[in-house]
């Protein structure tokens, strides 16, 4: 079902069905092993790993390379989602199709929970995946648009550290901004 490349080691990420047997997949591809901070091992194709500018520059700096690339501070869940996204982007690079790419990106984002999105941002930032960071930032901005202050606090899990008086004063200063926000 999947490509004909030999992959003897276990991969912890859920490998997606990769239906198109195009020329790319026929070549034996080099794999790179990433290790998340919670000790999960991810085997990804080199082309995918090279989407991560951080990993790429690591290999450029020390071509002799290591067996496993540790990613401190990056946990498995957001990392697997980031890998999933980058895998698709590689396909779009090989066969540019803006409409399909837009569609995929939109679906990828809408099916993610608020927490998933927020958790992926520092990972995309750390790995320096600019395209992903851009779509994540925009998606988060879209989700907090026209929401109440309390909603935004909950969204990001932020505690209110203003005193009641300070908060009242802030609201007075721009009373118009607090009217007519979304209910939820």
């Amino acid at each position, binding site marked *: 079902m999947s490509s004909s490349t030999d992959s003897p080691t276990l991969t912890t990420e859920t490998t997606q069905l990769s239906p198109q047997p195009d020329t790319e997949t026929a070549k034996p591809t080099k794999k790179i092993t990433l290790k998340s901070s919670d000790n999960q091992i991810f085997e990804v194709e080199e082309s995918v790993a090279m989407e991560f500018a951080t990993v790429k520059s690591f290999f450029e700096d020390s071509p002799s390379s290591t067996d496993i690339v540790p990613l401190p501070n990056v946990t498995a869940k957001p990392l697997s989602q980031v890998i999933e996204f980058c895998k698709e982007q590689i396909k779009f690079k090989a066969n540019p199709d803006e409409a399909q790419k837009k569609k995929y990106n939109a679906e990828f984002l809408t099916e993610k929970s608020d927490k998933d999105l927020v958790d992926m941002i520092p990972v995309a930032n750390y790995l320096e995946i600019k395209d992903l960071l851009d779509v994540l930032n925009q998606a*988060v*901005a879209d989700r907090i648009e026209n929401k109440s202050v309390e909603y935004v606090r909950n969204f990001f899990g932020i505690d209110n550290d203003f005193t009641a008086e300070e908060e009242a004063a802030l609201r007075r200063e721009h009373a118009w901004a607090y009217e007519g926000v979304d209910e939820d």
Partner: protein
Amino acid sequence: MNWLKSFKMEIRMDFMNWPDQHPSLKILGSLEDPADLVRVSSVCRSWRHFVIANGLCKRLCLRIFPHFLRVDCVIEPSCGIEKPSEFGCSKFVEWETLKREHKTYAFLAQGCLSFPLRECILDAISASSTDNYPVESIRNTLQLGDNSEGRAS
């Protein structure tokens, strides 16, 4: 070890780390309604500082209304232009300016986005930047007091 060198970004990671630090500039910079920015600036102290320090209301206002690029500085009728070196602390003055800009540009963007005001204020600004500078400069024709509560006076 080379590895440590290439992972100096851990610091940046902290900066982005929710929820105790700042939201990214990109996220808040993508908001297109001044009301969103104002509400976001009252989420917590660090967010307020972030919005003001980065002049996000001003940026948004200038993005929607490039006319305001001609505005030199904004003042509030009650407090005049920034107090000179009495305090001897330029950081303080700078911060006060940023706070004032946050407040004023939020009003301005909001005011200009509401229809009847839009032409009225933009006309005034075009007019004020034509002749007789500085007596008829924007500074003297457009004041926060004229725009209180988002309505024209």
